[in-house]
């Protein structure tokens, strides 16, 4: 007699190997990015080409710093999900596809860490 429930036995075995988590997270990050993209792009464009001290001061402001952190986390999460689908659609060799999917995830996590680290170092 198996201790696995019927549900546990079939989970992840459908053709998609997963549930709606990917779809849901893509929509949540999309909705979050609507205000975040605007709030991030405008101060960035104003600071681009600016004096070092002024730019440092601008991103020392809690609002700009928190917006930048939220933007990096949601944008790179949204990018990871989007690039994943593009790789799954166009790359068919198993080794190449696995390598690119792994690289995509690690690349996006790395850039979340780099972006958040930089903003914290500037603002704190």
């Amino acid at each position, binding site marked *: 007699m198996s201790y696995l429930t019927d549900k546990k036995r079939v989970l992840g075995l459908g053709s998609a190997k997963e549930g709606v988590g990917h779809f849901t997270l893509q*929509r949540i990050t*999309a*909705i979050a*990015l*609507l205000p975040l*993209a605007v709030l991030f*792009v*405008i101060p*960035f*464009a*104003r600071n*681009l*080409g*600016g004096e*070092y001290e002024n*730019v*440092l001061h601008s*991103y020392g402001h809690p609002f700009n710093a928190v917006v*930048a952190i939220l933007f*990096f986390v949601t*944008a*790179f999460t949204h*990018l990871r999900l*989007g*690039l994943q689908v*593009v790789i799954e659609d166009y790359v068919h060799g198993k080794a190449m596809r696995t390598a690119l999917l792994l690289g995509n995830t690690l690349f996006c996590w790395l*850039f979340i860490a*780099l*972006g958040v*680290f*930089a*903003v914290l*170092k*500037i603002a704190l």
Partner: protein
Amino acid sequence: MSDVNRGDRPLSPHLSVYRPQMSMITSITHRITGVGMTLALVWIVWWFLALSTGPESFGAIDGSLTSWFGILVLVGSLWALSYHFCNGIRHLFWDMGYCLEKETAQKTGIAVFVASVVLTIIILLIA
């Protein structure tokens, strides 16, 4: 016998046999703009890292982003963001079951292209 002749059977009709339609053009552009923004995003994180490091490294990255090539990438990415933003809203409405009729989708497709250019110009003017 399902393995016989796998691989050189005729493919299902591919992109080239279709007359370009608004739905496919907006969908492909959505993908290209999404993937295309990766470069600017990486460059911008680099800009923040340099800002956190010191004036010399900031000057170097800020100089590269404000060179003609940097500005070309940034303005291109600004349009890409504006397009992805507008068409993303269109997708969210579709997800909720609205605006799915063929004529409506064609009109919103044109609207997305127009709005993306207008949004790009507005942001360039105010920023």
